[in-house]
């Protein structure tokens, strides 16, 4: 009797333990407001080409100083949203991958060489690249996700990546920090070059 009862309990416990180890099935990923928000937040982070370019914008802004430190990160999301609109309405943008790769390559090179153009030139350059990034985000929105939440997610994520770049860029107040920033720029530029070569299909 005791033996039978303990077997039953053991079976129940085993079932409970197995149930406790269940993993998320992700059968309904990217659905609704929460899905859209998470999807939008993660989209720029999981794409290394996006991530490095976003950080480069903040980094370059910090290197250029006031008012570029805040004007560039304010310009980028607004123009990116306009690019996103083009993606949403399905307007094709030629050589989009090359444009995104070029953003990392060019912005990284600007930082590495400590190039200081006029503010309007810097803002125009950043805005131009933002169109490519926005188009990619807009065109790749998951169908089931809440579009507003997705938009808010990727705008917040982009802004936080700019902030990361700015935080790294604050090292500029120390001479060694200025060198570190330029090295970061060179690394971003090198990745940009790699993405560029990849977009031409020369490496996989």
């Amino acid at each position, binding site marked *: 009797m005791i033996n039978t009862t303990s077997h039953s309990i053991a079976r129940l416990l085993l079932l409970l333990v197995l149930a406790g180890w269940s993993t998320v099935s992700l059968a309904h990923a990217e659905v609704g407001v929460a899905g859209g928000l998470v999807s939008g937040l993660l989209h720029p982070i999981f794409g290394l080409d996006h991530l490095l370019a976003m950080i480069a914008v903040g980094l370059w802004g910090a290197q250029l100083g006031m008012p570029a430190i805040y004007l560039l990160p304010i310009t980028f999301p607004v123009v990116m*949203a306009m690019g996103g*609109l083009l993606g*949403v309405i399905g307007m094709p943008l030629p050589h989009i991958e090359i444009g995104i790769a070029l953003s990392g390559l060019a912005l990284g090179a600007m930082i590495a060489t400590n190039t200081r153009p006029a503010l309007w030139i810097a803002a125009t350059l950043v805005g131009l690249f933002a169109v490519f990034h926005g188009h990619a985000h807009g065109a790749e929105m998951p169908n089931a996700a809440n579009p*507003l*939440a997705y938009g808010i997610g990727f705008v917040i994520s982009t802004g936080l990546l700019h902030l990361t770049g700015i935080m790294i860029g604050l090292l500029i107040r120390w001479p060694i920090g200025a060198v570190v920033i330029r090295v970061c720029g060179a690394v971003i530029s090198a990745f940009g070059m790699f993405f560029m070569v990849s977009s031409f299909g020369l490496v996989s």
Partner: protein
Amino acid sequence: MKLLRHLILPLLVLTFPEVAHAHLISTRFGEFYSGLLHPLTTLVHIVPWLALAMFASMQGKAFARRTLPLFPLAVGLGVILGYSLGGYQDVLILNIISFVVLGALVALSRPIPRYAGLAAVLLFAISHGYANGDVDLAHGSLTLYVVGVTSAAYIVVTLGAGAAATLSEKATWGRIVLRALGSWILASGLIYGGFELMGISGA
């Protein structure tokens, strides 16, 4: 066999649950909570309301003091209009425009004529109230629902404007943070507007 009985009986009981009424959302002041939560849990309302709060604080304390009562009262009026004359979907385009206009005003951080600012506050408050009022309350109390939405508007605009004013006064980078947030809201509004124009609805 015993085990089966012990499992089947609880399972059978579980298949006949009764509503607990543990939360007042469906009883007594239910419509008040419903009205309170409707805008607070809807991105299309809460985001531009926060932008409006930031805009009000950036226009100066005199402007903010006028906005604090004007906005919730106009939202309440909008709810009554929405409930009485619901169905005009074209009015809701103003809610999309509110994202863009308020986000841009915060991002630009420029003073605008007081009457123009208050007119914008009034217009957007009524359009957002209208959207909140276009609901089916069944036999619920409209008064409680209106008070709920109005309270939500007051809470958001008061706390938001207070936080924004404190941030821009206490921290040297406070106004920059607000402008950056404004640009984010503007960007989100542009994307949202695009999706709506494409007929991909979502809030």
